């Protein structure tokens, strides 16, 4: 473990957008769970690809295609190392977490789930890890079963154990809740599921830039994440899938780049992972995602996790000390996401007023309507942290919330 604490002030220098003002105020960006900002190295890598290496991958017999293919495959290897995946061919590039989950629901799900079977998800899933499974279950006549969540925002693992049976075909759960910040005990869920031979998919969208992720330690069979939530470009993400499962899965989308031979009678598909990457991928995006991984690795995800945890504790204190504020989500293990409500003030009004102070937060149901319903809330305000946030920014949030409350009294 690196013991040198992280210096957010110097890290901020790497992010050009953090120098800009919003409504004449310094930007205080606390909407990192929606998307994170990009360090200069990522922006430069995107530019350099188009300026110096641009070509299609896996097909051209010319120098640029070779360079582009090398860069793209190096990015795949970087993702594999980042997740501690055993092999690079277990990494499929996709548009983001949503597409990764849709790929598994469509390919693995439609070939393995039948009438009377069950898919198990949790009550804190983002709609992107709920709706694809709901559609699959409707199509197949299968049941969608839900691991309940406590008032504190933790999954009930005893209930999970009783939900799993010999008709359960897959368990799909979120690593870190985007609405509550809860870090779920994935290894425990995997142990329960694997005890019955059930594979587990993990939605890692909110974990990837915030803590070390080791798919072998977690034991999961699928792990999905988005590049843009971990300092990378929008439009690219990755799916880790255990090779033995991926080998047996039918193609997702079909077309060019995923075939080995095509006649009008039949098509033979390429090897992993190319079988799952039909069409020209977001090559520049994947390459720049590789640069984002390099940036995060150089700092160290263990240091980032420590720094964000410190800031979370500080922010929880500031918000709890702000009259009228109630923090939603009191799990024992939390990442840097703070949902809160303010007495008598709708979250959208909070967000609008903070925006004019230069403070960016999210307000709404966070694409988790069933969770909001479970908690008896229509919406919350949410401040979400990243490695470049500071205590001064949290103080600015606290002060602005005082003003909002004064105004609405």
């Amino acid at each position, binding site marked *: 473990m690196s013991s040198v604490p992280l210096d957010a002030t110097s890290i901020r220098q790497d992010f050009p957008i953090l120098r800009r003002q919003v409504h004449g105020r310094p930007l205080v960006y606390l909407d990192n769970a929606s998307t994170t900002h990009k360090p200069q190295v990522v922006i430069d890598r995107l530019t350099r690809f188009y300026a110096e290496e641009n070509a299609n991958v896996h097909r051209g017999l010319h120098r640029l295609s070779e360079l582009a293919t090398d860069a793209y495959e190096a990015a795949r290897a970087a993702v594999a190392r980042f997740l501690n995946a055993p092999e690079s061919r277990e990494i499929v590039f996709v548009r983001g977490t949503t597409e990764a989950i849709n790929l598994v629901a469509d390919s693995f799900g439609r070939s393995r789930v039948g009438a009377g079977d069950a898919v198990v998800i949790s009550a804190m899933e983002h709609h992107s890890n709920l709706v694809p499974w709901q559609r699959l279950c409707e199509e197949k006549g299968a049941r969608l079963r839900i691991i309940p969540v406590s008032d504190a925002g933790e999954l009930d693992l005893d209930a999970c154990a009783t939900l799993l049976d010999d008709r359960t075909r897959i368990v799909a759960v979120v690593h870190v809740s985007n609405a509550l910040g809860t870090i779920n005990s994935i290894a425990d869920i995997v142990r329960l599921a694997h005890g019955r031979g059930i594979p587990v998919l993990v939605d890692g969208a909110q974990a990837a830039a915030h803590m070390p992720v080791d798919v072998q330690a977690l034991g999961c069979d699928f792990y999905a994440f988005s590049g843009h939530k971990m300092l990378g470009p929008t439009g690219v993400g990755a799916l880790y899938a255990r090779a033995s499962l991926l080998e047996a899965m039918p193609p997702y989308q079909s077309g060019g780049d995923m075939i080995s031979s095509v006649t009008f009678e039949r098509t033979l598909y390429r090897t992993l992972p190319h079988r799952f990457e039909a069409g020209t991928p977001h090559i520049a995006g994947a390459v720049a995602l590789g640069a984002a991984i390099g940036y995060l690795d150089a700092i160290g995800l263990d240091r980032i996790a420590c720094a964000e945890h410190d800031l979370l504790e500080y922010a929880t204190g500031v918000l709890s000390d702000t009259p009228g504020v109630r923090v939603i989500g009191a799990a024992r293990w939390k990442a840097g996401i703070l949902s809160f409500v303010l007495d008598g003030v709708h979250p959208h*009004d909070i967000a609008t007023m903070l925006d*004019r102070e230069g403070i960016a937060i999210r307000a*709404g149901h966070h694409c988790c309507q069933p969770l909001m319903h479970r908690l008896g809330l229509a919406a919350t305000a949410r401040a979400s942290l990243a490695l470049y946030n500071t205590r001064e920014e949290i103080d600015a949030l606290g002060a602005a919330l005082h003003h909002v409350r004064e105004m609405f009294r």
Partner: protein
Amino acid sequence: LTADVQALYQAAILDHNKQPRNFRVLAGGRSAEGDNPLCGDHVTVYMRVDEGIITEATFQGFGCAIARASASLMTESVTGKTLIEADELVERVHRLVSSPPEAPVEDLGALSTLAAVRQFPLRIKCATLPWRTLQAAAAARDEVVSTE
């Protein structure tokens, strides 16, 4: 807090948010529901109509201060109007809130305060939701209205 925020959340809006007028279910008349799915705002507008005149208008639901105040102001201003007058008023309010910030503000009495939302493009739909829902209730259309 900045001047445009203070204009948006002026006393009249905050008062209607805190103590919305005609905030109740009205049985036996026409009604319609409105949703802003991305916000989670939800409103139901009720009205009683007698010989083409709105004799009573009420609302229920949850949403931000802008949506609540707009709905509250609306129920006061349409009571006593004919359905045709109310429909015209919906269009005038729509223009009032969605015109460019520098455009002149039509004098619609208490409703003119809603013009402050022009400075906040993302919030215009909050102000218009109850009005579009009123139109649906007037037509007694059996559908959920959305201003997304």
